[in-house]
């Protein structure tokens, strides 16, 4: 039976995939970043439709920030950020098409032909869900949660140290002065 929830999931799902496709079809890098932002926002809307309010809001907030930063980097690093020159920036398109399509067909086959068992029709209230998630994070999954935190810290330090320009050696600086 088609419910309102199914209609909204279908609508936001089509939007997420459509904007995902636009990411690789437009020549403008800023448009690419904005299309990815819309795709991720549609995904967040799907989470909200599936009554995962906390995750939906988190997804939208996180991706809005992430994609804004990405847009800045796109403008900085691309040779033709506005896409005015319609530069071709792809390779091995045929192989990519085949692998992408095969992945899609394989995943759809698994989704459709596997018997997923009984489906839950009701879900706990938002406040109860968030409380259960908090207890999970600070209880049984504490180690995994802490590992994620430490990994983020490590990645931040690693990314910053990689991005900082190397210091010139004292010998070279001395020679340059002479």
């Amino acid at each position: 039976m088609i419910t309102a929830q199914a209609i909204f999931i279908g609508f936001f799902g089509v939007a997420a995939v459509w904007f995902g496709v636009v990411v690789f079809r437009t020549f403008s890098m800023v448009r690419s970043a904005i299309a990815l932002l819309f795709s991720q926002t549609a995904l967040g809307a799907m989470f909200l439709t599936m009554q995962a309010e906390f995750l939906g809001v988190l997804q939208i907030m996180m991706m809005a920030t992430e994609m804004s930063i990405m847009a800045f980097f796109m403008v900085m690093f691309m040779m033709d950020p506005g896409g005015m020159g319609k530069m071709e920036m792809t390779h091995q398109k045929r192989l990519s098409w085949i692998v992408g399509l095969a992945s899609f067909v394989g995943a759809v086959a698994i989704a459709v032909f596997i018997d997923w068992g009984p489906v839950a029709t009701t879900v706990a209230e938002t406040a109860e869900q968030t409380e259960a998630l908090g207890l999970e994070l600070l209880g049984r999954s504490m180690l995994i949660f802490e590992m994620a935190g430490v990994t983020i810290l490590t990645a931040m330090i690693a990314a910053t140290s990689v991005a900082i320009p190397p210091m010139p050696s004292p010998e070279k600086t001395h020679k340059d002065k002479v």
Partner: protein
Amino acid sequence: MSVELIWALITGAALFGVGIYGALSQTNLVMIMMGVELILAGALINLVAFWRYLHPDVAAGQMFVLIVMTVMALEMAVGFGVAIARFRSKGSVEMEEAAELRE
């Protein structure tokens, strides 16, 4: 079988396929990262759908989503760090010009 679950899984499959296409076909590092983001987005929607329609009483399902979101943020942070280093040394983040990294 639930229509909602199947549609969510098909969306995940489509995002995964589009992401794979992008990650393989693009020559620019930032665009490749966008492909990886879409692959992870496909995983995210699957995890939320499995939690919602199969095990809504188990909070660990939502925790997996948080872990994947963490991986997305890490991928961006490290990827941009590498992109800055590469751009600073070679003036480009085109992967076709990065063949010397193999040597």
